[in-house]
């Protein structure tokens, strides 16, 4: 029989990845507890945020194959909603994180309805999402109630878990890592579920997917809602962490592309790709900035362009692809399942 019933848990590529990714998160948490430098902790928190954002993006931008280039709208919307609700209405930040999920998810649904109903796909979809993020930026820049160009400041006076405010940076790292772990698990659950199959089908060939009874528009919308909602929550957490946001920052195009660089170079169909991609790239950028000062941003932007172009050309499936090849080789002999497959989560089928 071709399919082997009794297979090692780790021979499944998705299982292997989720364990490695969560293990890495744990290591970062333990390692972080020994770090005393606020500067280092700051970088670690930002890396965790970028890793979570990258993972969330990969659900829509990777798994469903949508060219979701303007992703920062959801992050920014979440960040601003939190800022406004917290400063103007005094709503509990934890509740804000939840509310930001729903409002960003709603935004994602609206964008999906607009674009998919009118048949905007591929590059037009990409341009639409990028343009929309900039529309939000300019609306907020000119909206005085929301602070206009000055943005929103949060004042943190005391350590209080309930109001998500800490003098020290360390608690933020722990919370960021817990969020990251939750996003990783969500990505894993999606990949292992029916939705994962639909997304794969839609990504590979939407006509054939439709012929098999998969409502392509609905599946794409679902991935957008999930992906956008998570970004909103992370945005809300970012506001609490940074204690200062302005439109040029949370709707910045440069930041937008920085966020996508991790999953694109790491592997947008994988679980480990976005996590390790961001964990490597974000600190590199921050260290460069610390080392070169303001010049780093300009240099880094040029580097981005180059790295993105080269990465997309030569690493279409990201670095994770090479890890997957190794993984397949490593477990192929023990499982005797022939060549295996790209996603690897089904080779253990029964009979």
């Amino acid at each position, binding site marked *: 029989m071709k399919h082997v019933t009794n297979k090692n848990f780790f021979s499944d590529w998705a299982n292997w990845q989720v364990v490695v990714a969560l293990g890495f998160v744990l290591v970062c948490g333990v390692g972080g507890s020994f770090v005393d430098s606020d500067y280092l902790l700051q970088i670690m928190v930002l890396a965790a945020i970028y890793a979570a954002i990258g993972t969330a993006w990969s659900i829509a931008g990777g798994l469903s194959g949508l060219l979701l280039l303007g992703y920062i709208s959801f992050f920014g919307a979440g960040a601003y909603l939190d800022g406004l609700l917290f400063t103007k209405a005094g709503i509990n930040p934890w509740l804000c994180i939840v509310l930001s999920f729903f409002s960003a998810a709603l935004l994602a649904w609206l964008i999906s309805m607009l674009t998919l109903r009118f048949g905007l796909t591929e590059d037009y979809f990409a341009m639409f999402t990028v343009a929309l993020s900039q529309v939000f930026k300019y609306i907020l820049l000119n909206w005085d109630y929301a602070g206009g160009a000055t943005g929103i400041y949060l004042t943190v006076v005391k350590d209080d878990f309930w109001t998500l405010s800490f003098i020290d940076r360390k608690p933020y790292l722990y919370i960021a890592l817990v969020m990251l772990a939750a996003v990783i698990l969500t990505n894993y659950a999606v990949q292992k*579920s029916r939705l994962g199959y639909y997304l*794969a089908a839609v990504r590979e060939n939407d006509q054939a*997917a439709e*012929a*098999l009874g*998969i409502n392509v528009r609905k599946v794409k919308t679902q991935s957008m809602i999930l992906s956008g909602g998570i970004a909103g929550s992370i945005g809300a957490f970012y506001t609490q962490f940074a204690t200062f946001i302005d439109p040029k920052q949370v709707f910045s195009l440069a930041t937008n592309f920085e966020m996508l660089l991790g999953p694109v170079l790491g592997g947008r169909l994988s679980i480990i790709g976005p996590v390790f991609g961001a964990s490597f790239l974000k600190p590199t950028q921050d260290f460069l900035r610390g080392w070169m000062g303001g010049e780093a941003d300009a240099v880094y932007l040029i580097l981005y362009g180059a790295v993105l172009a080269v990465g997309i050309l030569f690493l279409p499936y990201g670095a994770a692809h090479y890890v997957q090849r190794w993984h397949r080789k490593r477990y192929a002999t023990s499982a005797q399942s022939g060549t295996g497959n*790209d*996603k690897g989560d089904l080779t253990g089928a*029964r009979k």
Partner: protein
Amino acid sequence: MSEQLLVVKKLVKRFGGLTAVDHASFEVAPGRILGVIGPNGSGKTTLFANVSGFLTPDEGQVIFDGHDITGRRPSEICSLGIARTFQIVQPFAGLSVFENVVTGALRGGRTGLNEARDKAADVVRLCGLSPVADQLAGALPIAGRKRLEVARAIATQPQLLLLDEVMAGLRPTEVDQAVELIFAIRQGGVTVILVEHLMRAVMALCEELLVLQQGQLIARGEPRTVCDLPEVVRAYFGETAAHAAAQELKNA
């Protein structure tokens, strides 16, 4: 009429000035294998696309199992029980053969994942794809892809299967296997409509033939009889041949 599984009424599809399907009406009883033949560009694939929802007819009606499915979404039509294959095969190239079939077996959410895997394993075996089940679909040779196309479609457990030239490009032995497979599918209670150029297969399989020419149904009936009709010969071979055929028919 209620006996019929599929009823197509005066279906019209125009592309600009070209009428690809011109008032086509026919019906199919459950359990039949119906062949649709006709010269290139006669509207066979367009007819399929209209029935399966990939195109919306300009006029006319498509009624399946008592439901009016004219202009519904393809995924919805599939859920009602019509599966189709594509003339130009459309595998999910980056997924394994097995995963391709599982995707079909999920039936748009009406089947759970574990059950779908079991079903897919059965279908893979029935279609003779077991040796390549773990291979990437994109790496299959054409015969394998055609078979995968059929496997994925029947995994959705349709009542009606539309096969669009699944035998084109196959070697004679592979054609024989495909014919056997289609018989096996019909044995399982599935009604089949197939578009095919390969007359050997059509003659072996079909109980009834429809002949399309320039979007119009010009003949219908038992395969032998239909193929001898002068208008059918004319559609394929032109006036002279039709004349000769008519003479021959008269003499016989």
